[in-house]
């Protein structure tokens, strides 16, 4: 079927292909599915054939003010929903902190291993008692 034949049948029988002559229906449907021009013709006929009665909303387009107000409201919504990411500056110090902590632990271990034992006979609480005495805490009660 050619596009001209399709157009003639459309003009003669309307867009309801079920009401076209039986021998033409299959070819007409195939052409409509494959040919954009045929489809446009058919859709235009469909719009003319059954024009939906006006429902009073044709002129009901939003005015320029409504459009502008709507766009402004959209931008407000966008800004309201954009919650700023939590500030976490301490995260940037994490690597440096890890290095410092490792060095501190390593230094303490080295000091512990390399320092010779002070007085083997000294009681275990002697150093604490000395520390408390020096600090004025009064740690005599610790030494029984």
């Amino acid at each position, binding site marked *: 079927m050619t596009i001209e034949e399709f157009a003639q049948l459309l003009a003669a029988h*309307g*867009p*309801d*292909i*079920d*009401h076209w002559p039986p021998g033409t229906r299959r070819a007409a449907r195939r052409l409509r*599915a494959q040919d954009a021009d045929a*489809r*446009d013709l058919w*859709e235009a006929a*469909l*719009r003319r*054939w*059954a*024009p*939906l*009665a*006006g*429902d*009073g*909303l044709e002129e*009901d*387009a*939003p005015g*320029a003010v*409504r*459009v502008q107000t*709507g*766009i402004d*409201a*959209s*931008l407000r*919504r*966008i800004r309201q*929903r954009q919650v700023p990411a939590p500030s976490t500056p301490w995260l940037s110090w994490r690597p440096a902190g890890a290095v410092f902590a490792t060095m501190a632990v390593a230094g303490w271990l080295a000091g512990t291993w390399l320092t010779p034992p002070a007085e083997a006979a000294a009681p275990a609480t002697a150093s604490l008692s000395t520390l408390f005495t020096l600090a004025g805490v009064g740690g005599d009660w610790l030494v029984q």
Partner: protein
Amino acid sequence: MTGQQPWGRLSAAHGDDGADDDALMARVAQGDERALRQVGQRHYAATWRLAKRLLTSEAEADDVAQEVLVRVWNHAARWTPGRAQLSTWLYTVTYRLCLDRLRGRRHAPLEAAMDVADPSEGAAETMERRSEQRRVRDALASLPEKQRAALVLFYYQEMPGPQASAVLGLNLRAYWSLLYRARGALERALTRGGKEPFGRKGEP
């Protein structure tokens, strides 16, 4: 592609620099609010009209059209140029948002209930015309959501079948079939409402 589709009846925009929709979306993805405003100037009216037709409420149409622009902002980074028309995507988002509202609706909107004729017009024919319009609107509102959307996209938004079927997530053949069923349902609803049907029923 400039976004100026004849079936969208898009509004002429002031401040529109003529950039195509894909270029605008790229700018929106970079956080350019002026680009978003341009998208709004081009497409807001069309999405508002579709929402108004489907929801029959101006307030809800405002809400949906604004939400569509928010979606544009949020999804701009994922927009693939040339893959689809922006207007088709916007209609799809609008349709889905409306569908969600229609499914969640329990009562008719108050706004529709308060939509009474302006007594100052006075003329009998004005009242009759409004009554006729009301019948068509009521008949349209009584249809299932998909049928209503098929009619609105084709007859009111004047959208070609391929785009309308994409919006509804159907293939073209299924869309035409839906459109025919919707027309038949609308004819029956209008007949019940006392209005003469406008055409013959049948399948395409």
